[in-house]
């Protein structure tokens, strides 16, 4: 099963039939420049030392691997959580962002732009821009700005300009369109700091390599704390950056099952879903060929998920390849299952997870034992923390946790 990576290198920039570089000619030079800059940086000890130092001293790495005893009991599995929620800015996003921001500086580009769905990547980009003195503009769907107000304010405090995107479905895909349009216009002085494992080559590879630190740490920690190899590594998948980072070091290790959990929304069969691998078809979106939610004429269908961060109609091309080659399996958790996972992680472990990895928790609680076998050892990549989600979750789920009583007579 190590074919996953071997075959992937047949055509540069491709993973089997997926990937490539489908972009306006104006971006060709910038993508070549980025590819060359990354190639040089990846073998430059000074760059790698600076990246590693920032990750440790600024970003809080390595993040812990934690055996979640009460979740394990409820799931009938041995559940380990890779605590990316404890990294600076509250998610795995900074791993990639610091690396690309250093590349932007190396390329002499004083401005970075980013798309964001739930705001985690936007916050991370705004953070790195402040750290390195870069100017920063973040595109965010207007609907997502509403759902993730806290992160909008965080980005603004960090000095970024947040542009609410009113076009299309006013969510992540439209934010990416606007960021692409900005990049086509300002390519001379601007780096588009893509946050997911998608986009034109070299982004899917670059983002995987910068997120690889998750699985590298996970592997060493698991061997030291649990011994041996886990039976499965489980991660949520929107575009797929945390999952590709959590999978990367395990891809050549066939004994370890890799499970990507997509957002089923209201259910894969309802059509109101973001489960791209389950219900997408091969098509080009945002610069690469992958599996995409398109209709039979190639028009992109709106994705639906309770989670703004997974609400994306595409998936990174390497995930499409891992799925079709059989190296990884992709399953889906509904909004309801994700909300259940969110609630139980709070109650059983004292951890408020982001809604994105709550999908992985929800799937594990509902289907993990059947799918992986009683007592299987599973590492779940807890890709972010859920502060940003609390108001929306309580509103959508309709839980009576006492918010009204606490604020009775107050401003709420």
């Amino acid at each position, binding site marked *: 099963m190590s074919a996953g990576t071997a075959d992937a290198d047949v055509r540069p920039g491709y993973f089997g039939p997926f990937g490539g570089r489908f*972009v306006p000619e*104006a971006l060709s*030079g910038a993508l070549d420049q980025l590819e060359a800059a990354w190639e040089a940086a990846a073998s430059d000890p000074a760059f790698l030392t600076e990246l590693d130092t920032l990750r440790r001293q600024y970003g809080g790495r390595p993040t812990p691997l934690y055996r979640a005893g009460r979740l394990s009991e409820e799931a009938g599995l041995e559940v380990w959580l890779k605590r990316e929620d404890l990294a600076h800015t509250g998610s795995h996003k900074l791993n990639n962002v610091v690396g690309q921001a250093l590349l932007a500086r190396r390329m002499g580009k004083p401005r970075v732009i980013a798309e964001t769905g739930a705001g985690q990547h936007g916050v991370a980009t705004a953070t790195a821009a402040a750290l390195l003195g870069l100017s920063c503009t973040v595109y965010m769907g207007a609907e997502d700005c509403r759902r993730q107000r806290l992160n909008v304010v965080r980005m603004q405090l960090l000095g970024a300009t947040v542009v609410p995107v009113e076009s299309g479905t006013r969510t992540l895909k439209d934010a990416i369109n606007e960021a692409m349009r900005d990049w*086509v*216009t300002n*390519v001379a002085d601007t780096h588009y700091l893509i946050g997911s494992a998608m986009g034109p080559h070299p982004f899917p590879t670059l983002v995987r390599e910068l997120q690889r630190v998750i699985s590298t740490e996970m592997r060493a920690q698991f061997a030291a704390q649990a011994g041996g190899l886990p039976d499965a590594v489980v991660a949520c998948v929107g575009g797929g950056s945390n999952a590709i980072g959590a999978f990367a070091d395990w891809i050549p290790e066939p004994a370890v099952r890799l499970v990507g959990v997509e957002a089923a929304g209201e259910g894969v069969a309802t059509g109101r879903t973001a489960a791209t691998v389950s219900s997408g*078809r091969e098509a080009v979106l*945002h610069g690469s060929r992958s599996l995409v939610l398109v209709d039979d004429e190639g028009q992109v269908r709106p994705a639906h998920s309770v989670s703004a961060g997974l609400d994306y109609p595409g998936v990174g091309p390497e995930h499409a390849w891992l799925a079709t080659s059989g190296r990884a399996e992709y399953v889906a958790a509904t909004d309801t299952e994700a909300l259940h996972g969110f609630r139980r992680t709070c109650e059983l472990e004292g951890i408020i997870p982001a809604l994105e990895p709550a999908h992985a928790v929800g799937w594990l609680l509902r289907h993990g034992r059947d799918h992986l076998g009683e007592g299987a050892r599973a590492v779940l990549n807890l890709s972010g923390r859920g502060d940003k989600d609390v108001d929306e979750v309580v509103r959508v789920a309709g839980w009576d946790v006492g918010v009204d009583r606490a604020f009775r007579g107050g401003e709420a």
Partner: protein
Amino acid sequence: MTADPRGPAAVAAAFGRARAEGRAALVAYLTAGYPDPATSRACLAAAAAGGADVIEVGLPFSDPIMDGPVIQAANQAVLDAGVRLDEQLAIARDGLAGAGVPGVAMTYTTVADTRGWTRFADDCAAAGLDGAILPDLPVPEAGPWRAAAGARDLATVFLAASVSTDARLDDIVAASVGWVYAVGLLGVTGVDAVDDAATRILVDRIRARTSTPVAVGIGVRDAGDAARVAGYADGVIVGSALLRAAADGDPAGAAGRVERLVADLRRGVAGG
């Protein structure tokens, strides 16, 4: 019209006629189905009547990353109205029937690739179109499309930008059949004005490599812009301004507004 040429020959003839008249060719872009199917057909015919030498027919896509607000809105309006690809192609066929000018499809990779490269080429040819432009399909990814288009004798127009390297320009001119599309600025359609200094250099770099005509598009807003660009290019492409004219008032008057603006632009490309 007697035995009009088709495909690349029709496009070459259109540029040739303009050159023989001592002017640049005028290429007019309109989105198929906008603002509604009947008006769209009338606008295509009006663009031809007003003096366009070549007509680009936009086939809408939900996520057009090269387009600014005007063409984005037009694309979305057509899709929201439920006008699907076959109807868009029929609008192109009917609107340009008997117009005596070549038509070229303009759409995105996802639309053409989802239909299938061969079937898309077949459908363009069946609609009477003479070629296609796919602005997010760079030459290194275009092998299957070029093969399908070549087999149906369709023009394949590729975009070149001021940031294209010499090696990429070599590939772009080698792959371009009909004309080479020099982008007039780094940016999207319908927002900023042509960057004449950079575009002039780009046109010269392309001309040094090929005798295929070079047309400049993106950022040509009016007859004045058209006249300036006509001073250094073989063709001038106008899109957003025509859609603005089509939408600016009563649909019944759209064709008249388009025809008047095209006529004005035509005076522009002839030197003002």
